[in-house]
């Protein structure tokens, strides 16, 4: 009798453990986006134009260099920080100046941001400055996009493809 109780107790312990393991292995469910929400992912890696141009080395400077290093010009390797603005439905939701990467500032500027938006049609406006200047933009994109709930709208930047590349949108202009 006592043995039976003990075996039942063992069964209870095993069951409790199985329930513990089984439950949290797939529950409680986790909600990433609410119903009716979608996401925009804006990310790119792009190197702007060099900050300064090149300048001629003076004779004295040339003299100081090893013979095989005597190039007539020094060029700045540093790239210009990229200015970016992102408007959604005519509201500025992201605005930044992205410094170049690398210790010499000669690497591409990078960004990666996510935005939660409502499903439906949106006006997307993107502006990017990749050259040395205070005003104006080198790339401007304006589009109407339509997203369903749970869509991921990815915006990348690829100058070869003409600037900002929007993928994952349904229709729009």
């Amino acid at each position, binding site marked *: 009798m006592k043995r039976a109780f003990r075996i039942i107790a063992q069964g209870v312990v095993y069951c409790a453990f199985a329930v513990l393991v089984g439950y949290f292995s797939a529950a409680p469910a986790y909600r990433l986006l609410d119903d009716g929400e979608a*996401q925009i992912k804006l990310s790119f890696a792009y190197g702007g134009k060099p900050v300064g141009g090149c300048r001629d080395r003076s004779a004295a400077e040339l003299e100081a260099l090893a013979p095989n290093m005597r190039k007539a010009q020094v060029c700045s390797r540093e790239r210009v920080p990229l200015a970016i603005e992102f408007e959604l439905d005519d509201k500025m939701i992201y605005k930044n100046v992205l410094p170049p990467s690398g210790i010499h500032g000669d690497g591409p500027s*990078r960004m990666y941001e996510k935005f939660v938006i409502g499903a439906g049609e949106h006006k997307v406006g993107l502006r990017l400055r990749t050259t040395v200047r205070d005003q104006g933009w080198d790339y401007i994109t304006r589009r109407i996009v339509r997203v369903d709930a749970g869509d*991921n709208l990815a915006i990348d930047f690829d100058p070869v493809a003409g600037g900002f590349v929007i993928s994952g949108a349904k229709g729009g202009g």
Partner: protein
Amino acid sequence: MKALQSVIRTPFMWVEGWLDWAFGPRWNPMYYLGGLGFFYFWIVAVSGLYVYVFFDTGLTEAYESVESLTHSQWYLGGVMRSLHRYASDALVVMMVLHIIREFAFDHYRGPRSFSWITGVPMTWLVIAAGVTGYWLVWDELGQYVAVRSSEWLDWLPIFGEPIARNFMHEGSLDDRFFTLLIFLHIAVPLILLLVMWIHLQRVSYAKWKPARGLALGTLAMLLVLSFVQPAVSHGPANLDRVPLLLDLDWYYLFAYPLVDEWGAGTVWMIAFVGTFALMLMPWLPPRRRRPAAVIDLDNCNGCTRCANDCPFSAITMVPRTDHQPFEQQAKVDPDLCVSCGICVGACPTAMPFRVSSDLVPGIDLPELTARQLRDKIHTLAEKLEGHSRVLIIGCKHGIQSRKLVGDNRVAIDLPCAGMLPPPYIDYVLSKDLADGVAVVGCRAGECQYRLGQEWSEDRFERRRDPNLRKRVPRERLARIWRAPVEWRRALADIEVFQQNLTRLADQSETAGVKLTKRKEPQS
């Protein structure tokens, strides 16, 4: 810290006491947490191998191969997949309990910090193995894991191109990622296994295999779970969509919602600080190291018993350095010694009957030498009189002996009950220093020094040398293995023992036989 440990220890002791009743000490899962961890690891390895055979790498193939395994082969492949998942989950549960328990029972300082420190990277490896596993399925959950893991990793300024850009949209994905992942998902567990092995290098007689009954029980449990709730995938991954609702495996993916909530940087901070704090724990707050066991070469005959019984591999047998006609001698590595005295209990030269020579055994504990132990027993025995005189041999880590002493009961505490050389019991009884000896120590799986209870029982039962001589009347020896929280029951046990001793005395008096010598006034 001490208070925290004791707060956690108490519920552990109650639960373990109850499990002792239900499972018996040999099957008590709480005593085999690490061993169960190993067992789950093997289940994961075997089931993983099976699943791997049917797994295809590739953007769509991965998902499809797992789906077909789950559904068209539910009776075997599906079960294997479920076992793979649930044993992994059980491994995390065991690991967490194991960490908490080793902390609560103060098993992580001094020489034992080795196991603790090697345990810390194991937490990372276990999680990494699980995460790469979920990634491989390439369903919506895998997608979430991929995106969030890479966003999290990208926070560290070590990767040039952000990894997360590989998961921008459907078009940006590359098959090669799967090759890398499958490599990681195999390599990480292999490294884990290596570290698990290192983890046990300083633990002798490590319980890395649960008793068969326990192993079968938990395997059966996992099998039942696999049939009742088979592991399934979410919908296929689609990077142009964000999964709205995910059935997370919280054992492995608990950190991901935190990344969503608090950001990658904060979670990195928590992870770093947490890991660092764990690593630091063996040194906080500093505790006095007790002096290690010392060898007395003149008395060591090289029998190897101490080396065999030391729970922490602190003793090695080395070639003889003196001129005695033995091949070996014992050598203690003070850095590994936890000063439990179990070796003294093993040494045949810890012989209280010795009169011709001084009582110096081959191995001795400076804080309580074999000689001091004998002297103390004599002093304490003076206080006893009558027919129910009990000498309690207690343990510093067990029940506080002040709760047990009283009416004709005196107690002496050893660092571990396993330190008592069995001849001392013979000595006390045959010299009539007491009517009975009660050895009171911790329960089998709760011994502070792991093996004290086991070796004591083996020695009393004559399964292990030095054993308790046959001539010792067993009814005059009480072996009480109880947790500190059970001190009332231990006290009751001793009182019953005393009643029995009185009855024994009455019986022998009515029979006119003088079984034991009465204490005579010192002349």
